[in-house]
């Protein structure tokens, strides 16, 4: 398993760069992962999405339906793609510390 190093802490990630233990997530980790997803600077809008995903995952153990994510954060899907060029599932979810989606997605 590969590791990333953020603020002196070694964090295990899978081969696609998703962190393996959600409890290791910190805002610094998010900023580090964001760079790999083409997001150099996490703005308030980015944080709104990231925090929403993180809270949802903590509550339900799964990422939300994309349409619900849009409705609850007030962004259109197009805006989400503008914020996270690699998309909501593989970009935004990764930054928020969620696991890589499986199955037919």
């Amino acid at each position: 398993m590969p590791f990333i190093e953020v603020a002196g802490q070694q964090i295990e990630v899978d081969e696609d760069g998703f962190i393996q233990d959600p409890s290791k997530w910190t805002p610094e980790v998010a900023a580090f992962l964001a760079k790999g997803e083409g997001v150099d600077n996490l703005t308030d809008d980015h944080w709104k999405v990231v925090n929403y995903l993180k809270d949802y995952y903590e509550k339900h153990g799964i990422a939300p339906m994309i349409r619900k994510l849009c409705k609850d954060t007030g962004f259109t899907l197009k805006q989400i793609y503008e914020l996270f060029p690699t998309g909501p599932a593989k970009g935004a979810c990764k930054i928020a510390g969620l696991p890589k989606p499986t199955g037919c997605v």
Partner: protein
Amino acid sequence: MGHHGPTPEGFRRIPTWEVAKQPAERPKKPATPKTATKKTLHELGIVEVPDEHKVQAALERLHEQIKQRRSYMLAMESCVKCGLCQENCHTFLGTRDPDDSPVGRADLIRKVWKRYFTVQGRLFGKLVGAEDLTLETIQKWLAYFYHCTECRRCGHVCPFGIDTCEITMLGRQVLYWLGVVPALHADSCAAIHRLGNNMALTKSGAVDTLEFLSDEIEEERGFRVEFPVDKPDSDIVYVPSSADFMLNPDTLKGAALFFEYIGANWTITSRMIEAGNFGYLVDQYRTQRELVTRLLESAKQLGAKKIVWGECGHGWRAAKQYARTMADVNGIWHIPIVHIHDEIASYIVTNQLELDPSRITRPVTLHDPCNYARACGHVENMRIIIRKCVSEFREMYPNGERNFCCGGGSGVLFDDPEMYPMRIRFSQKKAEQIRETGVPDGPDGGILCAPCSICKAQFYPMVEEHELNVEVKGLLDLVGKALVFRGKETSGGKKW
């Protein structure tokens, strides 16, 4: 069932000159999916066979499997290399790599079979087309058996009736036992054993999503429809398609609206919450069995009289054709398993549904999911439904049993830099077909109806890659939209 194209030749509509336009060429190294980590394999209870033992282990598994089934033996012995399958395979049409064709892929096993298990192969080796099994060949298996989307178009045209996809499935199974599995498939199978479904859905997440969909229906139509979960004494257990919970809200809503319309006593079960079965795609023993067993057990627990299947292609084949014989339960297999499309079509032909096609005004074309069309006989019923739901339906050609795959079949939904471009090439033929309908050309574009979660997951990015101005939707989406709830709804919602 005939939905023949404008040319009577059907399959031969892809002229051979088109295939010959570009020279067939083998790449130095075929694009290969990333494989699972040790950790995931451990979750699946498998350990990768060390390289020095791989060849021997593979030969033992092959021998044991091929001896067991006459269809494998038929495939090994009967191919005359006529090439008909090649010109009918969307991966070959997209890549021009001879190994990336049905006969090319089957030969990766056939040559080995000849070398070790036939007299002529043992005596004369290469002279009779036999070849040693090496680690390089096993690496090629991984690439090419996961380029095959198991669409079975080749099996449909083979004059000898060889179902070449059965061979690539056999290859995938042997690879699984060797511990060589693409990460995407292994992770999905691990989710099945951990949580009971491919998507790693939780009950709490599903319930939250379903409440959200109830709210949406209320906003759009002015009345509320509930999605019961684990409701005891339900007549119907409904198994929605996997990505309905993530990407395809209108498909799930369509199913609920249909059940509401007919006044069904239905429920979704958290034990078998979605219809996918990645076991069927890589491990037809332990993993596939786990899910079909769950299915029958949960239906029994809830007292269901019928299991109704959602819009999932491979999962439907896995359940319809294998649940009864494969499930690890005795005595409760009398519960009928039907597909929701067949249910809806039966209500339509008996005039029990009021559907308003004027709510869907953009032109619509239909992609026949391979498992429906070539394995489960859905061709007519999908058309009975779609014609009643939309203002303008245009067939793409060829269609029905002669359709081309979306290019993502059997979970070939890899998104890594090596495999993603392959998906674009695999869907090239399909893109041509869609373009030819003219459906994307309207001022507001059109609708591509693709009633299967894998097809949808492939098309969402592929219509962008091929610059097709179409919105991807399911068939249930269209049903839900067109159903008229007299005295109940305040609006049909926005026009599509």
